[in-house]
């Protein structure tokens, strides 16, 4: 018996991606196999590498200084509730869980280090006000007139998926009628420089899970899911796009930056999410992987899938959609959750682009080449990040 008060469903999806605003532009671009990655020098002269940027954003709000991350978040949130026709109180009392790693870092110049007071006097004061990551969630609330619990989640590249998991927990606690959960991150010199210093950037478009992978590309974007209980959604006659059947969060606790080499923490996370979803390993039709394209991540992740799906009758289909528009950091988990739901809706398994020589694995069906069409009742989105954090989300198609 399904408990409709404890079943979490997705009733709205808002996306801002390098394809444009809206899930439909993302879906159309990905179904066409369009890659948005471009040389970084076009945007940031002097920077090597490859990035994917969002084009011009509409002007959404006046009167405050918002960071680019805030703008992306507000645009995605507005898109997510564009079709909302439920009671105004449900939206006003909603919770907001927004993930970010960059926050307002994009607004701060390196010159601040020569003397903060002087930098503030010369125009930096209002720009620095957008620095705290909590601003991202607060901005969404201000923009949409939402007054419920608001929380920013900042757990490196697992942030976006964790925001969705924590938002779902809030609904289990009946602490809000709905939750807007997702992530947002802007491109900025700070993060480009950081990953460059770690020699983690692929100079050309990345090649996740390929034996010749050299690193990641940074992208930007935002995605927001509208979550509510099935009971609440049914009562207000909302169209259910997907069911969030299970979620889990774990930590490797092995290294500050590198993943556990056997992917043990991630495998444990996947198992727990499947347990919560009451879902067998045979039922999962697709895994949208973290798949950054870095040597260490992709091999650890491969081991995690081999372990957690061991015993399946058929190899588990896996792809990394970071090959389309890069790694959007704190937004990645949310964007990939949106892509996973899109895959289920369209019955389309997106291949990893440029995957010509995959990591050898008997347990994994690496999706590459042509788009694969097949019904997809259950799919999973997996995220991991610096600090050993892991998150997994299991989505199912809504029951008719």
């Amino acid at each position, binding site marked *: 018996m399904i408990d409709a008060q404890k079943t979490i469903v997705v009733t709205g999806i808002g996306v801002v991606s390098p394809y444009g605003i809206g899930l439909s532009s993302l879906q159309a671009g990905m179904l066409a196999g369009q890659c948005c990655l471009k040389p970084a020098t076009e945007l940031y002269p*002097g*920077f090597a590498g490859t990035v994917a940027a969002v084009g011009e954003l509409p002007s959404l709000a006046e009167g405050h200084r918002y960071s680019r991350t805030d703008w992306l978040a507000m645009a995605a949130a507005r898109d997510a509730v564009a079709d909302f026709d439920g009671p105004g109180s449900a939206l006003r*009392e909603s919770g907001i869980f927004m993930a970010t*790693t960059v926050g307002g870092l994009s607004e701060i110049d*390196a010159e*601040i*280090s020569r003397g*903060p*007071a002087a930098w*503030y*006097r010369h125009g930096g*004061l209002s720009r*620095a*006000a957008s620095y*705290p*990551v*909590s601003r991202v*969630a*607060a901005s969404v*609330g201000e923009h949409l007139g*939402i*007054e*419920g*619990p*608001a*929380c920013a*989640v*900042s*757990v*490196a590249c697992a942030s976006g998926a964790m925001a969705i998991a*924590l938002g779902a*927990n*809030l609904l*289990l*606690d009946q*602490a809000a009628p709905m939750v807007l959960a997702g992530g947002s991150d802007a491109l900025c*010199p*700070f993060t*480009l*420089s*950081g*990953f*460059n*210093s*770690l020699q983690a950037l692929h100079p050309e478009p990345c090649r996740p899970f390929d034996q010749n992978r050299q690193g990641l590309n940074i992208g930007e974007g935002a995605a927001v899911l509208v979550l509510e209980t099935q009971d609440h959604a049914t009562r207000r006659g909302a169209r259910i796009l997907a069911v969030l059947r299970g979620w889990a*969060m*774990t*930590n*490797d*606790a092995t*290294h*500050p*930056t590198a993943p556990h080499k056997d992917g043990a*923490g991630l495998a*444990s996370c996947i198992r727990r999410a499947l347990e919560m979803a009451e879902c067998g390993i045979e039922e999962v039709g697709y895994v949208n992987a973290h798949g950054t394209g870095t040597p260490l991540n992709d091999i650890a992740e491969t081991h995690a899938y081999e372990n957690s799906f061991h015993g399946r009758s058929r190899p588990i289909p896996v792809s990394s959609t970071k090959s389309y528009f890069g790694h959007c950091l704190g937004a990645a988990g949310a964007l990939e959750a949106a892509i996973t739901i899109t895959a289920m809706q369209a019955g389309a398994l997106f291949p990893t682009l440029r995957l010509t020589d995959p990591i050898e694995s008997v347990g994994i069906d690496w999706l590459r080449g042509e788009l694969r069409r097949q019904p997809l009742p259950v799919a999973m989105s997996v995220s991991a*990040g*610096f*600090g*050993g*954090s892991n998150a997994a989300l299991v989505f199912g198609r809504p029951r008719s």
Partner: protein
Amino acid sequence: MNAIWPVLTGIGSVTPYGPLAGLVPTEPLEPSTITAWTTPGLRRAFLVEPFRPAAVVPGLKTRRLDRLSAWALVASSLALRDAGIDLSQWDRSRIAVFFATGFGCVELTEAFFQSADANGWAGTDPITFPETLHNAPASHVALFHDLRGPNVTISSKSFAAESALLQSASLLRNGQADLAVVLAGDTLTQAVYEWYEAAQLLSPACFSHEPMPTADGFIPGEGVVAMVLEPAGRQTARSYAALGAGRWAMGGDARSSIHQLLGDIKPDFIFCAGNGAPCSSTAEAYPVRDLVGEDPAIYPAQTVATGMGEAGALLHLLLALSKCPGLGQALLLGRSAQGGYAALRLELF
């Protein structure tokens, strides 16, 4: 109280009172004079005096860490010790770490900007970059104690610490963890302090040794407080309090929400949690006075904890628990200048 409500069994802190396990001294503190950077005159704040972490937690290596991560390690170790937790007896894959912060690893973020300014964006420091991420302190706590459960770092305008307490309790209640180490804290740096000053948010007491009890503004502070939450029932555990229902929100009808939260309960104590905003005076933190009558003893927001802004509620709670003599029902209550609120029911043991 409901049996599924978790209990607070351990406290550790690194605050201007020093590194301590359990409750803290109750006498008020004076702010210290800032000497870590050159100031244009007297500048004061509630600062953590330098100490050697390994002297408090033997074996702790913090040489490569910023102060926030080092304090998180010390505070979490003291809290687990205070709770009498022998981690070898626990399934560490089911222990969560939940960290609340306003500014995260701002010391190393500033250091990274400094390296970019000095060497250009192509010459930044690879060791520093990962440590600038907000979740670095929580991940160091996981790494040091081998805690493999959910590891979450959050921030919430005005109410990060309250939110972390409530969300940790949710992890326990929903079976996603068996034990949670909840931490909240921030470090004070030149850039943060000078931003407050430029935005005219500081109390005149930051610039003078003269007492000015009624002046607006706040005195910035720093530190980390850690608390151990677990389900009730462990045989050897001493409990400070059980954590009941709670709520935080950016706005809306705080009174009716708190009324709903309290039900028929009349709290014996109200612990006020200011949030660092200059107008969050103690008086504004009492919207429920008419709901609960004149009976409850009110513990005003403490200046030292208010200085920690949105990460300050754990220190407010710690100070209130340290001062509060009795058993009974308590309400931890925070208000923000923008109309937000946080409220959390507690049963004190």
